[in-house]
């Protein structure tokens, strides 16, 4: 059972991209202003959670497309990999390396940013995994 109503459904349709955009915004600017992977991931999760509440977990799963635990694995993998290149080059694990010139909009790119992306994915993944499991159980 969901909170099915045209009103809520339409609101979700509207809020979902908006919220996700906000989460990307938080992620992108987190290195320089409040935000970052954690809160970005949480906000993204909130967007999907809304779908889950309103349209049920089937819709939310379709929307997420991948199994949330795969998202977790991907996030962990990304975070781990962001630290590996220097290690393979004989340096210290997780030594940051940066592109010389900042890109427009997203700013400077470097392995710590990649790490933050990993964090984002993990947080999104775990929140959705937990919510899906609970919602499934709730039925």
């Amino acid at each position, binding site marked *: 059972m969901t909170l099915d109503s045209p009103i809520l459904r339409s609101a979700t349709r509207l809020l979902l991209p908006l919220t996700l955009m906000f989460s990307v915004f938080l992620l992108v600017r987190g290195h320089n202003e409040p*935000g970052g992977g954690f*809160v970005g991931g949480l906000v993204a999760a909130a967007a999907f959670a809304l779908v889950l509440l309103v349209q049920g977990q089937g819709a939310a799963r379709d929307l997420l497309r991948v199994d*949330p635990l795969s998202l977790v*694995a991907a996030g*962990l993998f990304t975070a781990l990999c962001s630290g590996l290149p220097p290690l393979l080059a004989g340096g210290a694990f997780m030594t940051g390396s940066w592109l010389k010139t900042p890109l427009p909009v997203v700013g400077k790119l470097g392995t*710590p*940013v990649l790490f933050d992306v990993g*964090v984002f994915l993990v947080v999104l993944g775990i*929140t959705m995994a937990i919510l899906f499991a609970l919602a499934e159980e709730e039925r």
Partner: protein
Amino acid sequence: MLTSILLLFAASSLAPLAHRALGKRAGVCLAAVPALLFAHFVGQLGSVTAGRASAESWDWVAGLGIRLAFHLDGLSLLFALLVTGIGALVLVYGAGYLEGDPRLPRFSAAMLFFMAAMLGLVLADDAIVLFVFWELTSVSSYLLIGFDHEQEKARKSALQALFVTGAGGLAMLAGLLLLGEAAGTLQLSALGAEAARIQGHALHLPALLLILLGAFTKSAQFPFHFWLPGAMAAPSPVSAYLHSATMVKAGIYLLARLNPALGGTDAWHYLVILAGAATLVTGAVLAYGQTDLKRLLAFTTVSALGTLTLLVGISTEHSARAAMAFLLVHALYKAALFLGVGAIDHEAGTRDVRELGGLARAMPLTAFAVCASALSMAGLPPLFGYVAKEFFHEAKQEVPRAAAWVSTASFLGSALVAAAAGLVAWRPFFGRRRSQLSAHEAPPALWLGPVLLALLGVALGLFPGSLAVPLIQPAASAMRGEPTVVELAPWLGLSPALVQSLLMLAAGAVLYAVHDRALAALAPLRGLARLGPDRGYQALMAGLVALARAQTRALQNGVLGVYLLVTIGSAVALAGYALFSRATLAAPAGGGVRLGEAAVALAMVVGAVAVIRARTTLIGVAALGVVGYGVAVIFLLFGGPDLALTQFAIETLSVLLFVLVLRRLPPLRQLSPRSEHLRDGLVAVSGGLFVTALVLAATATPHATPLRDWFAANSLSAAQGRNVVNVILVDFRAFDTLGEITVLAVAALGVVALLRLRPEDRKESL
């Protein structure tokens, strides 16, 4: 020497294979190993008699000064010969005794293992190495005594033996370490030279006491003698081996070995002689009271061990040679007797003297072996036992104090043992043949050992000078730590000792004659046995279990609230004590409070109280949420926007979690009684006070900020980020974050797994 020990260990581990491959011949083949070693040690006699001890050593645990050191002097050699010689015979015997029994391979393996340990024990020249083998004998004897492990009695006896000797062993370990400390060396052969240093050392007495505890338990000295008869639950060959030449003699060996270092002091005299004398009498009295031949032999063993201890305690030249002679003869006759009794048991099906009789014609060889050995035990000339007894009478004249008491005790003991010997020698073989017995002579494997040993006893008695002296003299020398001359002739002439022997034998004869009546007369006194140390042991073990149960009921009572109370209470008490006794509390500097901040603080406090007082889960969750949002606002107000954002988001998602679970959660209930509220409240309030004090004390200290300053300076320039908190999280301390997202991943995995794993598709894992 290490080679010979390893050879036995190897034989032990190969024994099961050997039995599978060789079948019936395996027993003899395995016995060949100790037999060969026996031959090897016989070959050493010459050089050892000439005073050339051989030694070998390797580093073992260099850091602790422990060397894998071995040393072959007269004492070790005497023991090594007994261990290997009797060992070989017992293996042969055992193969016959357990023929067809599926447990035979295990028997051989355990015996060889024990043999190796015992050989290691007597050859070791390092106190710790000696202890290693000492414990190995305990362990392997545990398996041997519990050989009939499906019977509860066997299991209990095995445990009792292990526990008592194990306890002594641990004391001894401490004693040996202290001794090593006092002597400056752990090398046994070097201890004698340090005698003065040791005996003057403050640790001397504790070391002595602890070592004696080890020796006394192992050698079944009063009041630790009680485990030995119980150990008779073992099959006869095991008893024959453990209780004649080996296991129980380990304590005697240790005393003899340490005599040069520790002997001669008053403490030594008092303790060792007293224990020996008491054991001598106790063993003899108890032996006399038995009707089971094996138990009877067991108590005579106790008595003999007392005699040996007494002799070692006297610690003179005479006593040394007496000790070594007695040691030798006892090993021979006792092994033969146990084996013989085993053969009787095997053939006649009983060991009770009251049910036996007239077997001499059916089992002539066994009868010969048993009689000859028993007479040797009684000390009848011309057997070697007589010679030993003569020495004993000589030696006990030299008891430094209370000689009369000791003399009386030994006389009484000897007489009782003589009577017991009569029971063993006469009752089964002579007199009326019991109808229900249809015994035949035992197979060769069963009589070979006893007969050989008995013959050896006779031979030694007949030719002591040429046969016994080469064995006894070097051993006595080693025990004394100085060359000791031993002269032996079969007849020492009409000496006071001879007179004493005769008197003692006469007394023994009388006692033998009245045995049945005496037992009947003493029957009412059996109740007294309950007061013995065995009873004490039982009570101790029962008490231990009771204590354990009581403790578990009190501590591990399953009530989580109590666990938490104790844990929290410990933390608060300990850290609180440290804080209030040491730190100075001062109000932190300035800042002032704004209205809004105070309002937030108030809201949080109200929220916290509301959580406690909540009557429904929902209210509790909501109130908790109020506190969480309050925390977020505090973060926001004091320069932590990242924190505030995260806290807001997480707080809301937590509410979502609660909401999803809430309907499945039980309602909030008031369960604890009032007294518990009060008790817990007290602890909780103390905890709160402690934390407040801690925060005040910590924030009152000057704020050292090396990290903060460095991050502030390097965040943008070195890590390309303006948001220092984020830079710390993804760069400076990204390793923390890596761990943290791992935690999250696992938590999610856990939630999913727990919820998905339905009871119906649950499978049993190992």
